[in-house]
């Protein structure tokens, strides 16, 4: 069985994230890392592999700038077998529709029985790439799972929605996404980190995937950011030390604001 895990390299959420002059996410001046939410995807792929009687190959795939290689290294040190890095200057500014095109072409080229991705990227937070991949690849979408298993060519999982918790089932090949409720991701071991150095990382560009530059990037995007403004800092509020009357003072504040 071949599993492809989609992982994204994202700016650190605890750092100072901002926009570049062309209103794309600034990736040059900010520290990046493997999206924490995609660590869950790597973890579930590794568990599916460990629980399978078949030979399973876990490939991690990223579309991103040169530094995105760090995300692949981390996933390899967690235990993935090989990595693919799609990198091309023309990809700068690609939106979700374009990203899904590149990922889908790369997944097809790599070959797959199962695609595993995270629930959302921590920078864009769209949460739509997995559904777009299923649509493009023409395979079942089994997404937002907090529990997942694969047996006899069937993927099963639990999707905890707002109105109900659902049990889902589909035949492979399929696209799966997992949530941060699916189980903590493992830490890379020292052995894993050493082993990762020897694992193959392939590099593909747009021509390797038969994609024209106009189909992606800022110019190929289906959406355009018109303005981006830092949210004005909230005006400093009143802070009171509780000296025994804190609850009453808070009630007065709520009354003054007509909440009670």
């Amino acid at each position, binding site marked *: 069985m071949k599993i492809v895990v989609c992982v994204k390299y994202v700016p650190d*959420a605890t750092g100072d994230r901002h926009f570049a002059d062309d*209103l794309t996410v600034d990736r040059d001046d900010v520290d990046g890392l493997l999206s924490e939410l995609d660590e869950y995807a790597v973890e579930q792929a590794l568990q599916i592999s460990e629980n399978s009687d078949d030979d399973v190959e876990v490939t991690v795939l990223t579309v991103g700038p040169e530094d995105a290689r760090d995300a692949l290294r981390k996933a390899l040190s967690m235990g993935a077998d090989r990595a693919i890095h799609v990198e091309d200057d023309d990809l700068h500014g690609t939106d*979700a*529709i374009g990203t899904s095109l590149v990922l889908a072409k790369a997944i097809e080229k790599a070959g797959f029985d199962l695609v595993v991705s995270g629930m959302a990227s921590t*920078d864009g937070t769209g*949460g*739509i790439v*997995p*559904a*777009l991949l*299923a*649509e*493009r690849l*023409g*395979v079942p*979408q*089994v997404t*937002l799972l907090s529990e997942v298993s694969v047996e006899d060519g069937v993927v*099963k999982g639990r*999707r*905890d929605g*707002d*109105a*109900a*918790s*659902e*049990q*889902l089932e*589909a035949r492979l090949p399929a696209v799966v996404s997992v*949530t941060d409720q699916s189980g903590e991701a493992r830490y890379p071991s020292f052995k894993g980190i050493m082993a990762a150095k020897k694992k193959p990382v392939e590099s593909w560009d747009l021509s390797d995937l038969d994609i024209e530059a106009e189909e992606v990037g800022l110019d190929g995007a*289906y*959406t*355009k*950011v*018109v*303005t*981006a*403004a*830092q*949210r004005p800092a*909230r005006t400093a*509020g*009143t*802070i*009171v*030390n*509780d000296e025994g*009357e*804190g*609850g*009453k003072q*808070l*009630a*007065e*504040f*709520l*009354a003054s*604001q007509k*909440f*009670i």
Partner: protein
Amino acid sequence: MAEVLVYVDHADGVVRKPTLELLTLARRLGEPVAVALGTGAADTAAALAEHGATPVLTHEAAEYADYLVVPKVDALQAAVEAVSPAAVLVPSSAEGKEIAARLALRIGSGIITDAVDLEAGDEGPVATQSVFAASFTTTSRVVKGTPVITVKPNSAAVEAAPAAGAVEALSVTFSARATDTRVTGRTPRESTGRPELTEAAIVVSGGRGVGGAQNFAIIEALADSLGAAVGASRAAVDAGWYPHTNQVGQTGKSVSPQLYIANGISGAIQHRAGMQTSKTIVAVNKDPEAPIFDLVDYGIVGDLFDVVPQLTEEIKDPREMSGSQR
């Protein structure tokens, strides 16, 4: 006037509030045409008409409940082909975003997710989004195809605007992929009787400082005195003190109520991502350095076990409070 397709989120015919908000926003762009699918679809018509839906296109079939997402994409695509709308609006739930994304791809259009506001523009709708944990506000447009936009709850005030709301049957042919992912079991959420977290006007949340599952009773008591929904930080959810459905933040719900009260929550960036756009923010935390205090309109540095029960009592019994007012 151009027509704007609005995807209706409903439970057996009862329309959820975010859909009514969408109708308000849709009217800024054109004439709303509603699409309601599944059991009880036709029952949505009265509520939708009251809020401005001209026709309500309906289709009932078992597939909508028995298979994931794709049957709904098929139906929405049929509606787009029948109506040729100027835009398609979908509530920004997890499922809503997936439906919208697949639809956009099929009809060759761009998609904007999680809009918090929407205006008509010379070159089509302009969507406002709140990004990077609400530290930036952006405006965007779809530049190819029919704009498909998902909109977060609490993005607009619901306004009544009576319209015809005639029910029309939508004709839908399911695609080969419609029955790919089977729903083999469904456990409905138990209702707590409290308002929906994302729709509530007031949210009262508890974090690690609450210290245990039983202690959430004092958070619930405060919430009930205000008619509020209860939220929790991920630390409280991961500890097993409160259900994940109540988690506020990046990987939980994003809320934008009139009033948010954070109790024993430090205010990590991922938590802020889900509550920073609340109108009024109040916090109770014993650490004066907690980052949550950077956001508050009113903050109490103190032990929540003293402050929260006292507040609840004051709300339930305001006589005493008037005594303490200056």
